[in-house]
C-alpha cells in the first residue's frame, strides 16, 4: 500500500524536478563558482568596495522598505475606511505608479531635480530611495488594501465596543491582522530594490547588485562576480525566510464577513485632509513624471525623434505586447503547475519550489547571461530540428523571462493554496476525487484571486524588463524598453519620452486588468 502510494506520487516528483532544473539552470550556472571559492577575490573585495556596497544596499533597502510600508499602508487604510468624493477613482489611480519603470522615474526625477538640488545634490541615495518609494509603494498598497477589505467590520466593531478608540482599533486590530499581507508586499519591494541595476546607477548608488555587474563586466573576473551574486541570492533567501516568519504560523480566520469593513462618514476636515494627501501622492508619483514625459514627447515630435533605428512606435508596441503576452502565459501556467505539484508534498517539495523561483532574486543581467550560457549549451547538442537555435529566438527570450518572473505567479498561487481550508480538500478526497481533480475543481477555483492577479503583475514586470530582452531578443525585434535604453544610455531624454510614455500606457492597461480582477472579488495573495 505504502509502496504503491509512493509510486503514485512519482510522476509529480519527476515533473517538479524537470521544472526546477529548467528554471534554476541560469542561476545555477552563475552560482557554480561557489564550488571553488577564491579567497583572494574576497579579500580584495573586502579591502576595497564591499563594505561600501553593503552599507549602500542596506541603507537603500531599509529606507525604501520603511517608505513603501508607511505610504502603502496609510493610503490603503484611508481609502478603505474613509468616504470621500472620487474615492473609487483615486483608489484605482494610486496603483498606477506600478506602470512607471524605476529607471524611467529615475531619469525624470534626475532631470527635474538637478535644477533645485544641483547635479551633485540630486545624485544621492536619498533621492534614489524617494524615486523608488514612489514607484514601488503600490505593491504594499495593493496587498494592504486587499487585506483591509477582507477584514470583518464585526472584528473592528468588537474592538471599538471593548473600548478601543478608532486609531487604537487600527493599531491593535486591523494592522496586526494585515501583517501577512504587508510582509508579502514588502518582500516584493525588497526583491525589486535588491535586483535593481538601472535606477541605482543613475544616482551613483553602488549596491551589491551593481557590484556584481561591475566586477563581472569590469574585469572579466567571473569568479568574483559570481561570489557577489551568491551574497545577493543569500540576502534574498534570508528576506524570503524573514517574510515567512513575519507572516507567522497563525492562520487568521475571521467569521466570514457578511459585513466587510465599511466606509465611515468623516468630519469635513478629515475628508479634506484624506483627499489632499491622496492627490498629493498622485501628483508626485504620477502627474509630474507623466507631464515631463509628455513635454519631452512633444519636443521629440517637433524635432522628428519619434522613431528608433528598428522602426516606429507600432513596431515596438506590437513586439512588447507579443513578448509580454507569451511570457505571461508561460509564467502563469508554469507557476500554477509548480505550485499545485509542490502543494501537499511536504517540506522538501517546498524547498524545490523556492529554488525554482530564485530567478526573481537575481539581477536581470545575471539571469540574461546565465540563460544565454544554458541555452547555448542546448544549442550545441543540435537537438532542435532544422538547425534552429534557442539563443536569439523568441522561445529563448520567453524562457529567460519566465526564469526571472514566474516566481511572481508561483508565490501567489502557492500562498493562496495554503489558505484553502483543509476541510474542503479532505471532503473532496473522502468523496473519491483524485488529487489532480481536487486541485482543478476545488483548490484552484478557491484561489482564483491569485490566478487573476498573477498575470497582471507578471505582464507589468515583463513590459518594464530590460537586460534580458536586450541580450536575448531576436534580430529586428525591439521592444519599448530597448528603445528607451537606446536613448537613455546616451542621455537623450527627449528621444526616450515616446517609448517611455507608451510603456506607461501599456502598463496602465495591465494595472487596469489587475484592478478589475480585484474588484471582481479576487484578492492579492502572496
Amino acid at each position, binding site marked *: 500500500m505504502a509502496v504503491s502510494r509512493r509510486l503514485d506520487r512519482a*510522476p*509529480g516528483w*519527476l*515533473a517538479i524536478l*524537470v*521544472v526546477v532544473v*529548467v528554471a534554476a539552470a541560469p542561476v545555477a550556472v552563475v552560482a557554480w563558482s561557489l564550488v571553488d571559492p577564491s579567497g583572494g577575490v574576497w579579500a580584495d573585495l573586502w579591502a*576595497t*568596495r564591499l563594505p561600501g556596497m553593503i552599507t549602500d544596499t542596506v541603507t537603500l533597502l531599509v529606507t525604501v522598505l520603511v517608505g513603501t510600508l508607511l505610504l502603502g499602508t496609510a493610503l490603503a487604510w484611508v481609502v478603505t475606511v474613509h468616504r470621500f468624493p472620487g474615492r473609487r477613482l483615486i483608489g484605482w489611480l494610486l496603483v498606477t505608479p506600478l506602470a512607471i519603470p524605476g529607471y524611467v522615474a529615475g531619469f525624470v526625477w534626475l532631470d527635474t531635480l538637478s535644477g533645485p538640488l*544641483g*547635479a551633485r545634490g540630486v*545624485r544621492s541615495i536619498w533621492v534614489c530611495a524617494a524615486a523608488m518609494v514612489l514607484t514601488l509603494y503600490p505593491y504594499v498598497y495593493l496587498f494592504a488594501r486587499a487585506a483591509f477589505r477582507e477584514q470583518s467590520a464585526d472584528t473592528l466593531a468588537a474592538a471599538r465596543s471593548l473600548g478601543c478608540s478608532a486609531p487604537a482599533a487600527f493599531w491593535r486590530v486591523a494592522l496586526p491582522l494585515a501583517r501577512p499581507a504587508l510582509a508579502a508586499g514588502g518582500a516584493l519591494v525588497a526583491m525589486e530594490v535588491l535586483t535593481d541595476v538601472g535606477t541605482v*546607477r*543613475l544616482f*551613483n548608488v*553602488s549596491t551589491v547588485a551593481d557590484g556584481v555587474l*561591475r566586477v563581472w*563586466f*569590469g*574585469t*572579466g*573576473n567571473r569568479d568574483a562576480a559570481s561570489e557577489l551574486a551568491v551574497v545577493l541570492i543569500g540576502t534574498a533567501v534570508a528576506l524570503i525566510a524573514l517574510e515567512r516568519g513575519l507572516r507567522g504560523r497563525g492562520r487568521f480566520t475571521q467569521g466570514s464577513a457578511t459585513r466587510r469593513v465599511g466606509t465611515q462618514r468623516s468630519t469635513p476636515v478629515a475628508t479634506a485632509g484624506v483627499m489632499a494627501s491622496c492627490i498629493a501622492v498622485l501628483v508626485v508619483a504620477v502627474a509630474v513624471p507623466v507631464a515631463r514625459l509628455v513635454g519631452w514627447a512633444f519636443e521629440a515630435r517637433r524635432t522628428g525623434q519619434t522613431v528608433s*533605428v528598428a522602426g516606429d512606435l507600432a513596431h515596438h508596441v506590437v513586439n512588447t505586447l507579443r513578448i509580454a503576452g507569451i511570457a505571461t502565459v508561460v509564467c502563469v*501556467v*508554469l507557476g500554477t*503547475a509548480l505550485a499545485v*505539484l509542490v502543494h501537499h508534498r511536504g517540506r522538501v517539495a517546498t524547498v524545490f519550489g523556492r529554488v525554482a523561483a530564485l530567478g526573481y532574486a537575481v539581477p536581470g543581467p545575471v539571469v*540574461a*547571461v546565465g540563460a544565454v*550560457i544554458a*541555452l*547555448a*549549451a542546448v*544549442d*550545441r547538442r543540435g537537438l*532542435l*530540428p*532544422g538547425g*534552429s*537555435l*534557442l*539563443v*536569439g*529566438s*523568441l*522561445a529563448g527570450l520567453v524562457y529567460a523571462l519566465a526564469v526571472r518572473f514566474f516566481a511572481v505567479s508561483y508565490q501567489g498561487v502557492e500562498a493562496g493554496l495554503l489558505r484553502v481550508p483543509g476541510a474542503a480538500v479532505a471532503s473532496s478526497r473522502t468523496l473519491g476525487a*483524485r488529487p*489532480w*481533480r481536487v486541485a*482543478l475543481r476545488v483548490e484552484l477555483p478557491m484561489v482564483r484571486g491569485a490566478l487573476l492577479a498573477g498575470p497582471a503583475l507578471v505582464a507589468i514586470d515583463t513590459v518594464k524588463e530590460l*537586460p534580458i530582452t*536586450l*541580450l536575448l*531578443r531576436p*534580430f529586428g525585434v525591439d521592444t519599448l524598453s*530597448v528603445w528607451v535604453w*537606446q536613448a537613455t*544610455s*546616451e*542621455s537623450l531624454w527627449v528621444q526616450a519620452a515616446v517609448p517611455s510614455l507608451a510603456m506607461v500606457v501599456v502598463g496602465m492597461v495591465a494595472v487596469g486588468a489587475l484592478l478589475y480582477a480585484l474588484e471582481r472579488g479576487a484578492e492579492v495573495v502572496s
Partner: protein
Amino acid sequence: MAVHDRTSLRIRGIGIALALAATLAACGDDDGAPDDTEARIVTVYTGRHYGIEPVFDQFTAQTGIEVRFTTGSDPELRARLTAEGANTPADLVMTADAANIELAAQAGLLAPVDSERLDGAIPEELRSADGTWFSLSRRIRTIMYSTERVAEPPTSYAQLGDPRWKGALCLRPSTHPYTQSLVAALLNSVGETETLAIVESWVANDPLYINSDTDILKAVAAGDCDVALTNSYYLGRLQNEDPEFPVAIEWPDQDAFGAHVNVSAAGVTANAPHPAEAIELLEWLATTGQSTFSNANFEYPADPSVAPADLLVAFGEFTSDLASVRRLGALNAAAVDLLSKAAYE
C-alpha cells in the same frame, strides 16, 4: 469514469513541463534560422548603437548585402558570443571601446583578417597586430572646461588633481569602459606609481561622478563643475545643436604622450557564418563608409586622410597617444584594480 479521470489527469500532471518545453521548441522553429540561400546577409553584434543605421543602409544600397544587427553592452554581447561558440549567427563584432574589442580577441572570438584595403586605410597603431580587429573611428577623451568661469584650464591629466579644482571636477564612474581605458592608457604612458598618484589626486578633489558624458558637459555648462573629462564628440553633438554652448576643449599632455585616444573598432568573428560579407562590410566601413561612420557622430575618422566633420576644425590640431591604443585591452584589469585601489567611485 474514475479510472479514466485518474489516468488522463495524471498524464496531464506529468506532461505540463514537457508540453511547455515542446511549445518553446516549436516557437523556436520560426526564429533563429536565417534563410540566406538567396539574399546576401551579414550579422553584426554591436556595442556602438548610435548612428549605425544610416551607415548600414548606405552599405546595403551600395552592395546589396543586407545588414542584420543587435545592440547591447560590449561585455554582455561578448558573453553571448562566447556561449554561442560555433553556433553564433554573428559575423562582425563592433565595440565602442578599444579594450572591449581586444578582450574579445584575447578570448579567441575573432578571426584574423588579411586585407590590403584594411591595412592601407587604417594606421598600424589603430589595428591589432594579428589583424583580428580594426579601428573605424577615433574618440579623444580630453579635458573640457567652462568658457565662462575658467581662464586657465589644466593642460594635463595630472593637473586635474590640482587642489584648485577641488569640488569643481566632473568625472565618469569607474564602471564605464571610457574611464577604464583612460587609466589603462595612463598606465601605459607613465607607469603604475604615477598613474595611481594622478588618480588619487583626482579623487582627493572630491569629484562629482556622472554616468553620462552628455550630462557631464551639461553640468559644466550649468556651473555644477568647472572642469571635466569626456569624449570629444559629445561636445561636437551639443555644439551642433547650440553653437554657443559654453564649454571648450583643452587637449591634455601635448608636450608629453598626448591626448588619450579610444576607438570604435570591429572584427570578424571566429565562427562567422558569412565571413566574406563580414570582410566586405569591414573594408567598406574603413574606406567608402569612413566619412559617414565617423562624421555623423563628430568623431575623428580612423583613416587620417579622411577629413573630419567641419565642426571639429574649431577644436584645433592636437597630439594624441596612439601608442597606447593596442595595449588598452591587456591593461584593462590593471586599470580596474587601480581605480578600485584609489577609491575612484
